[in-house]
């Protein structure tokens, strides 16, 4: 880990959605009756670092990423970007930061306007942020961006509508649209999960290249341990709004400590027909009733190793070594 000042510092970030109805939700909000989508998250992201957030759907990954960009206002917590708490900023004060913090969506088929050509899509971003002063400048900027994301030859893509492009090409357009702003921080929310396996690598290589060439920091959100392993410096495992394990990617992959991380690893299908099918250590689905885990460990219903302590307390993240933190009571044995 580098010793620079972090680009992004998240402290005790929380986002609760109230499940109460009527006047009670306003005058007597109860913690037990709210869905804790993001339940106390703390981490740092350094310049040029790729941090993976891995977890199942419904564990709060996307809600968390959207609170970082203030697309959803968090209930509580601090988000410092380059040392400044962006949550306290007014709309006007926050605008310059929007350019620096960008988001790539999961579904390239749905996130691009079908009535705009590739060039128009990027032009719109340029106009909104006032990046170009003349038509030529604008065209040059689009040209350079398309080149950067590997949509070559450029003339072939310039006037194409999204329906004529493949998933991989569309995702490159969405990356171009973000890249033209020269952001310092990009959240990639499952950028390859809807793409073919053979196309995924190309997109991941592209993201990796951008990180190296422009020192962009990435938050890579996924449910797939394999791709996380291949592009992340560090990985955080998330379960029901909390980070249960965080550390260097190699450490997490080679010695997963939290039972949930172990389950995520065991669940990955193996491309070897002779391998014995792995045994999944956990059962069931992500629970949907938040009342059951108000005081206990969030993972309790599915954990095969739960003891009495797990029922009465929430485990905090603790250092196993200086690069690896785990939130579990059962590491003492």
């Amino acid at each position: 880990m580098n010793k620079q000042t972090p680009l992004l510092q998240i402290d005790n970030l929380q986002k609760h959605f109230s499940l109460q109805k009527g006047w009670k939700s306003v005058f007597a909000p109860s913690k037990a009756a709210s869905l804790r989508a993001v339940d106390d998250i703390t981490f740092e992201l350094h310049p040029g670092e790729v941090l993976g957030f891995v977890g199942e759907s419904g564990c709060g990954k996307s809600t968390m990423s959207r609170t970082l960009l203030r697309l959803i206002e968090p209930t509580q917590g601090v988000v410092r970007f380059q040392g400044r708490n962006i949550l306290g900023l007014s709309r006007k004060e926050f605008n310059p930061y929007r350019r620096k913090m960008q988001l790539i969506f999961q579904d390239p088929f749905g996130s691009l306007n079908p009535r705009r050509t590739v060039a128009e899509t990027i032009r719109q971003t340029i106009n909104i942020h006032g990046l170009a002063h003349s038509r030529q400048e604008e065209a040059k900027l689009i040209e350079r961006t398309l080149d950067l994301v590997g949509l070559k030859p450029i003339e072939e893509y310039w006037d194409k509508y999204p329906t004529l492009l493949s998933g991989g090409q569309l995702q490159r357009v969405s990356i171009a649209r973000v890249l033209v702003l020269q952001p310092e921080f990009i959240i990639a929310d499952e950028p390859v999960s809807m793409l073919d396996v053979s196309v995924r690598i190309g997109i991941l290589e592209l993201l990796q290249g951008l990180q190296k060439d422009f020192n962009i920091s990435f938050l890579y959100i996924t449910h797939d341990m394999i791709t996380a392993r291949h592009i992340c410096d560090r990985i955080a495992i998330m379960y029901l709004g909390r980070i249960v394990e965080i550390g260097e990617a190699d450490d997490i992959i080679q010695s997963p400590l939290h039972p949930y991380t172990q389950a995520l690893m065991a669940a990955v299908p193996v491309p070897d027909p002779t391998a014995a099918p792995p045994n999944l250590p956990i059962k069931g689905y992500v629970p949907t009733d938040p009342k059951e885990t108000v005081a206990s460990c969030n993972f309790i219903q599915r954990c095969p190793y739960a003891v009495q302590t797990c029922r009465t307390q929430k485990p905090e993240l603790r250092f196993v070594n200086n690069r690896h933190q785990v939130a579990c009571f059962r590491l003492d044995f």
Partner: protein
Amino acid sequence: MSLLEVDDLRLYFYTKRGTAKAVDRVGFRVEKNETLGLIGESGCGKTTTALAIMKLIKPPGQIVHGKILFQDRDIVSLDKEDMRELRGKGLAIIRQEAQNSLNPVMSIGKQIAEGLLVHDKIGKKEAWERAEHQLGLVGLDTKMISHFPHEFSGGMKQRAVIAMATVCRPQFLILDEPTTGLDVIVQRQLLSLINHLKQELGLTALLIAHDLAVIAETCDRVAVMYAGKIVEHSDTVSLYRKPLHPYSQALLSAYPNLKGEKKQLRSIPGVPPRLINTPYGCKFEPRCSYALEACKHQEPEMMYQDGRYVACHLFQA
């Protein structure tokens, strides 16, 4: 005798811009109690092949040539009534994203029992009981029988869909991308379920996926499809050990690994060809790193070699 035999199937879409050869000279057999995997990139004709077997192709798509023999009956020439009889009971399909196609205003139990009422000529009560049993078989709580789809999570819906498709005990089941769009843990649970059902019900199946690992865990044999054609057909173990066709090789080397050394990944350069007015020669030639002169002009024939089929000029000598 094979349970299903597809012979020289050609399925074209006649559009304003030209004829798209979505499935071109495809042939394969599926023996009883065997699972055949069909793998390839999006748009290579996997789903179209599956829909052809179910006879669910709509214009402008048309089966131009070929036979699809199911228990020695040619599906291509069957009329609507016979086909209706066959679907659900003889042949069943779990379509892509099937978990999102459940009827939201009908209880799960009713949706499962529907097939039984049509095919097995049994009373409502008995159908309901069998639907309940079916839910247990796919690992769902039998109490959920009167629940509605919105009360189910994605993985549970997919289980319900599997229950629906297998309730009439079809002899042949097509699973089209059964785990795509689901989380890893749910995917693992479903793969175990599919393998369990294969044994329990003695299923014969065609499984379509673009994920090599999913195929490896469920299939006995694999057919690799590219641009409407099968380019390699072999048993699963040999294919993964030593892929013959350059496209199969490329697919395997683009697959990242989780365990062991981090492998150097190679993406496949270029994009699949459009299916309209495709050029002569091998369809993979523009992206192939071993392409010969002959590949440009002449389409490779399917060759038989050590129990495996491959269509590539490199093996024609």
